[in-house]
């Protein structure tokens, strides 16, 4: 079983997954998966493709259903399909409540191509939070400054580079001030020379330390630098879970070692 | 309300009219298939005049109402010495109008055949017509059969237009029955149901055909 890493003493976990199983048709993607994340913790999830890493994020973002187990976000139960417990599935209210607390940045950006950068950042503030236009735009400008793109407010996504698009996507997610931010391989689709600018933003976010962050990533050095904990997954389960130095330098499990060898040789 | 006795009485005559409708549909479609192929091949002719003319005819026929084309043929042909029965004229009009659609469908199919096939045929010194016949069309047509099938259904649904030139197909018969008995509801509804049932059946058949003929990558 996985061991918990160094967790800030006070908190009850902000994310709790226990015995979670998920299938896509015939394909089992998560098997008896368990994970706890403390508030404001920064977790890096690594593992081979197909190990179910992205699925975890998508479940937390309410984009996927589960077939078994417990999924709890900030004290709110999304799914409780544990044997011996009353079955609970999310109703619309619960979904919206959880979505208000979780933000996600996608591998392929998913910016709204028919809107300017400014509109991308303000549409949710105005529609979901009912923030008036000036306030929403002010916050958008603030965030654009934070990610270094304040001069792009009037541009459209098509006019931006991949790195710029991803930084806008991060700003868009932050605009709603979620408690938990999920990053799904956010640099994997970028040309190598553009990766750095995105990692800089993530680093900055991690340093500010206000948001719980769960990052699925292949960037091992970055994980070591920024994460409180690294979780290695394979075949739908947690294989090893511990401090970055320990996992990445002296992994205890053979599978972890094999994976790291393969990745670092690439 | 609905007079079921009346329904039973008119049913035989409507079934007879259905025969005319089916005849017009089948013959019209045959004409459309053959003529459309001609336009499609002509459009790829090396003679710019022929290609341009074919494209122009197809575009013009596709963009104008079949009813007016029908009138044109029905009223103008006798002036040119050609007298055909209303049914024959109707079939001609249907075939001509729908040949413009089938031409486009064939065109899409032909353009879907990889360029290399043309080059291989050329390397084997096959003439244009032989290339079409043995190499291109056998590959171009199967994938577009479902689209042709849908056009067939559309043609079927256009046969009531022939009532405008007195052909005794389903709609015309319904109108006559209605005017004789002053009860229009039953005949028209029956005709509507006939069309609905047959076109749903045909649509289902085309879908089955599609899963068998169209390669799904």
């Amino acid at each position, binding site marked *: 079983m996985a061991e918990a890493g160094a967790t800030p003493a006070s908190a009850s976990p902000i994310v709790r997954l226990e015995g979670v199983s998920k299938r896509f048709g015939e394909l089992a993607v998560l098997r008896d998966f368990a994970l706890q994340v403390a508030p404001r913790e920064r977790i890096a999830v690594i593992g081979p493709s197909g190990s179910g890493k992205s699925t975890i994020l998508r479940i937390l973002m309410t984009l996927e259903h589960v077939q078994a187990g417990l999924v709890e976000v900030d004290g709110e139960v999304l799914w409780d399909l544990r044997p011996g417990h009353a079955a609970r599935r999310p109703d619309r209210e619960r979904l919206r409540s959880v979505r208000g607390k979780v933000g996600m940045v996608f591998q392929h950006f998913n910016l709204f191509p028919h809107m300017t950068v400014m509109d991308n950042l303000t549409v949710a503030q105005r529609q*979901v939070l009912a923030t008036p236009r000036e306030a929403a735009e002010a916050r958008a400008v603030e965030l654009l400054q934070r990610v270094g793109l304040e001069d792009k407010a009037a541009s*459209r996504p*098509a006019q931006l580079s991949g790195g710029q698009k991803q930084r806008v996507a991060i700003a868009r997610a932050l605009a709603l001030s979620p408690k938990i931010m999920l990053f799904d391989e956010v640099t994997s689709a970028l040309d190598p020379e553009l990766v750095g600018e995105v990692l800089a933003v993530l680093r900055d976010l991690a340093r500010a330390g206000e948001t719980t962050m769960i990052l699925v990533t292949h960037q091992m050095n970055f994980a070591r630098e920024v994460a409180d904990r690294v979780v290695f997954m394979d075949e739908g389960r947690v294989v090893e879970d511990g401090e970055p130095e320990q996992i990445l330098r002296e992994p205890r499990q053979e599978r972890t070692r094999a994976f790291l060898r393969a990745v670092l040789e690439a | 309300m609905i007079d079921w006795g009346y329904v039973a009485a008119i049913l035989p005559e409507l079934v007879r009219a259905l025969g005319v409708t089916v005849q017009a549909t089948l013959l019209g479609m045959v004409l459309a298939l053959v003529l459309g192929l001609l336009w499609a091949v002509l459009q790829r002719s090396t003679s710019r005049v022929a290609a341009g003319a074919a494209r122009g005819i197809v575009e013009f026929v596709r963009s104008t109402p079949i009813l*007016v084309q029908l009138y044109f043929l029905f009223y103008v042909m006798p002036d040119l010495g050609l007298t055909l029965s209303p049914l024959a004229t109707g079939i001609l009009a249907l075939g001509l109008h729908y040949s413009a659609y089938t031409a486009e469908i064939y065109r899409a199919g032909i353009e879907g055949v990889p360029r290399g096939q043309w080059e291989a045929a050329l390397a084997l010194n096959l003439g244009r017509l032989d290339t079409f016949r043995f190499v291109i069309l056998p590959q171009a047509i199967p994938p577009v059969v479902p689209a042709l099938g849908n056009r067939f259904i559309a043609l079927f649904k256009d046969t009531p237009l022939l009532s405008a030139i007195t052909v005794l197909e389903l709609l015309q018969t319904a109108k006559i029955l209605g005017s004789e008995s002053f009860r229009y509801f039953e005949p028209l509804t029956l005709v509507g149901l006939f069309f609905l049932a047959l076109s749903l059946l045909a649509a289902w058949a085309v879908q089955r055909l599609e899963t068998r003929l169209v390669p799904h990558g």
Partner: protein
Amino acid sequence: MDLPRPFDLLPLLLDGLATTLVLTLAAAALAAVAALAAGLGRVSRRAWIRAPVRVYVEVFRGTSALVQLFWFYFALPLAGIEIGARTAAILVLGLNTGAYGSEVVRGALRAVPRGQWDASVALNLTRAQALRFVILPQALVAMLPPAGNLLVELLKNTALVSLVTVSDLAFQGQVLRSATLRSGEIFGLTLVLYFAVAAVLTWSLRLLERRVARGRDLGGLRL
């Protein structure tokens, strides 16, 4: 002023053309509303919306437009519903074209990449908000080319109303023919007029397409 043949036929024909245009535009407006409503209805998550919409689409697509016209014009009055010929025409043509249009809308909605829905969920937009601000604006681009085709089909279908006594272009053509027997000139000219209108409609829609797609990376729209 006496116009040379065949242009002396024009005044009466243009009268009919005006009616044709009015019918086309009115029916197009109805069709757009019906197509949007039905297209969205087809993808609704509530079965009690999906089912009747499906019936509407299948019935109007599966039966002949002319039969529908006759039914509305002749059969409905017997059920106590009286509507004028023109109204029946606009209603039938609009609903008929709308049924085909709903398939276009449905296809266009499916063409919007899944990631856009994901991003909308991630930003906690409701389904309605997602449709309104994110999905439909993008689907619109995919809808325009087939919509252009449907518009021309609608124009051609308006000729059918001449058979239920509405005095459109085709009707005027018949009137002229029975008066003058100059069939070749009359129907030839009529065909040319229809062709001209069809060309204008197609060209206008292509302009609209270009404007809507301007400055946009279609971002992976699966066309």
